[in-house]
């Protein structure tokens, strides 16, 4: 049988991969958004594992809402990205530093 700690360690590994993806990808904003998606899926796996092992469906409801918010976030993020590309002509992280002091 697969224990709860297996699921939790798997999701923490995925979470860290998403984190290191944000660390090392200093060029492309689309990849940053995809790393955020990866982190969200890791968190959702945590919720579902606890929901299964505790016998409580509230965790799955929470995952449902997280999926909704993530879809909205991606829609607005990609819209901002398109706008950024239209204004700047590039979506590299290095170019978008006008807020840098």
């Amino acid at each position, binding site marked *: *049988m*697969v*224990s*709860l*700690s*297996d*699921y*939790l*360690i*798997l999701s*923490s*590994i*995925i*979470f*860290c*991969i998403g984190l*290191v*993806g944000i*660390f*090392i*990808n*200093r*060029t*492309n904003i689309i*990849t940053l958004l*995809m790393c955020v*998606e*990866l982190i969200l*899926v890791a968190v*959702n*796996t945590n919720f*579902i594992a606890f*929901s*299964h*092992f505790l016998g409580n*469906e*509230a965790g*799955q*409801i929470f*995952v*449902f*809402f997280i*999926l*909704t*918010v993530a*879809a*909205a*976030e*991606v*829609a*607005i993020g990609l*819209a*901002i*990205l*398109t*706008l950024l*590309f239209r204004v700047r002509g*590039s*979506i590299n992280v*290095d170019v978008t530093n006008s807020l840098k002091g």
Partner: protein
Amino acid sequence: MSSEQVIFYILSFWFIASSLAMIFARNAAKAVLFLVLGFFSAASIWILLEAEFLAITLILVYVGAVMVLFLFVIKMLNIDKSTLRAKFAGYLPLGLIVTLIIIAEMTLVLGGAQFGLEVMPSPAKHGADYSNITVLAMQLYTTYVYPFELAAVLLLIAIIAAITLVHKKEINRKKQSISEQVNVSAKDRIRVVSIASPSKENK
């Protein structure tokens, strides 16, 4: 080793491998495809956890809509590949150190002593008459009905925001102007021209 464990480890391997391939991919479109593979593995793991509705939702909504949206944007934006991975090596050692420390800490905290099978025994599998969708729907439409409606409003706001952000100025749009239509008078639209009769000219 039971068959469930074998399936779990195979799916976990593909999940981790595709995630690593995603963050190291040079091409953004390839990264999206690796992420799709990762989402499929995640959905399979969710089915192992008896969350069938959410697994199908992950594939339909995420792979079917969100990832296709990513691909659309990548194809539209014509990303310059030469600048990609320019400062790749500079942040890799720090990122690796931080990640390894986090994974070690998490493994210590979440290991078998706290969340193993002895402490948290695996629940009995549901029978064939169990419906995950029915259980979720009963919760969603009773206890969580207000958050459910708020989620719908949130999606509407996201639609409006996304359209407003990327909306261009109107170019040759066939928009109706009701006040102009009402205030129009006959002399603006009709021009009466007196034409000499052709039969008279022929004579």
